């Protein structure tokens, strides 16, 4: 079953593959985001309770779900690296972590910005916001450990271990934070109810979400390429590539 994957364990093949898919992902992402955001911000109906401030939803929710999705993807890459000793997995972990961290930060920032009109304050210790904050810490841990080692191989392995430990802990942390939140539920904080979503709101959301997802794919592939080059800088194919590009 893993045989067909084998050629992609070769850094050179994978490098050229990501090189080829980047323009596709880039164009898809660009067009989907343009359509989606214009649709969502200008044409989709405003929420009957929250008015136009609801529109930040189109940015906040994709960012939040992608931030968790990226962490999961990173952990899967880390697991593959541990089990099959794939060196490229380390590169994938290193490539994904900063992207995920930025999306987590976006989710936090938009969450806070959404909170201001809704709750009247920038920050509440809402369960979802708190989990998102912890997720940011976990990402920063992976990035920090990846930067702390001088040797790229070791850095990748260390980051993979932390990513795996993090992904096992993430559900526990999420559950405990939710439980903590219900325990300390203050009277002043009205929990943000799930907006009843009409189809007119749903479709622009899907387009936005896909746009952001392809954006993540594009950026990750670009970073992945760089990581592959960094890890193989002493290999002849990288040297040839550099010479070609220098012409």
């Amino acid at each position, binding site marked *: 079953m893993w045989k067909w994957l084998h050629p992609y364990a070769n850094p050179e093949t994978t490098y050229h593959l990501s090189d080829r898919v980047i323009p596709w992902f880039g164009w898809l992402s660009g067009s989907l985001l343009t359509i989606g955001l214009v649709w969502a911000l200008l044409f989709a109906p405003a929420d009957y309770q929250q008015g136009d401030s609801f529109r930040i939803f189109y940015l906040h929710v994709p960012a939040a779900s992608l931030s968790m999705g990226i962490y999961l993807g990173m952990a899967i890459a880390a697991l593959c690296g541990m089990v099959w000793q794939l060196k490229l997995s380390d590169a994938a972990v290193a490539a994904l972590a900063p992207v995920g961290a930025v999306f987590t930060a976006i989710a936090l920032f938009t969450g806070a910005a959404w909170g201001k009109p809704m709750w009247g304050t920038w920050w509440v210790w809402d369960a979802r916001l708190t989990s998102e904050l912890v997720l940011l810490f976990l990402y920063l841990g992976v990035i920090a450990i990846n930067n702390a080692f*001088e*040797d*790229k*191989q070791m850095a990748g392995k260390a980051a993979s271990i932390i990513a795996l430990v993090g992904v096992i802990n993430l559900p526990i942390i999420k559950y405990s934070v939710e439980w903590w939140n219900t325990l300390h539920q203050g009277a002043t904080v009205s929990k943000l109810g799930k907006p009843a979503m009409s189809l007119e709101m749903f479709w622009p959301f899907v387009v936005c979400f896909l746009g952001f997802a392809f954006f993540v794919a594009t950026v990750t592939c670009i970073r992945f390429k760089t990581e592959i080059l960094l890890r193989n*800088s*002493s290999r002849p194919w990288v040297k040839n590539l550099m010479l070609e590009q220098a012409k």
Partner: protein
Amino acid sequence: MPWENNNTIEFISLFIALQSLSAQIYLETKQLTCIKQDRILFEDLNVQFRRGDIIQVAGPNGAGKTSLLRILAGLAQPYEGTIEFDQNNINEQLELYRQNLLYLGHLPGVKSELTAQENLEFQLSLHGYGNSDAEALLADVGLLAFEQSLAGQLSAGQNRRIALAQLWQSNAKVWILDEPFTAIDAKGVEAIEQKILEHANNGGCVILTTHQELNLPSNRVSRLELDYRF
């Protein structure tokens, strides 16, 4: 230019090779490659370490001698390639391999808070020689009367002797010794050399690095040269 030559490894052991053609291969590396900090230390290294061999890994500082020994011991992973012990990949039989391995690195692994005897007893037990006579072994390495001294109060050479005392007990097939003579006086060096020879004669295999000239019959020692590569 040496660094343009892919075949950096020259295994000068004609005599031994002829002598031991039929000898049992204990350890074998297959296409071993090591990359540290983007520098290729060695590439496609294929070496066999046989019963009765004494192999001195030689080369300038930074050529990858310690890296090679650590990879052989299974402490570090090679970038590519495998190591086989008795024709099987060591990663698939780690416990068996470790039972047959004695590795003494740069650092003696001696705790300064424990006495010489406590240290040696711990190290022996850890490798399955729990019921050996640590006091007698310490006497063998010239640490008679120092058994109860804290290792922290002993000199660097004495600390190394504590670790080296394991050589007087170990019957592991493969010994990997990284600079065993550091901080050891001339008499001690001689005793260790004799021990190494004895082990090889008894069917062991010794892989070591040292910057000193080995004072052993030259037909018994083969050299594995590692070049510094850029």
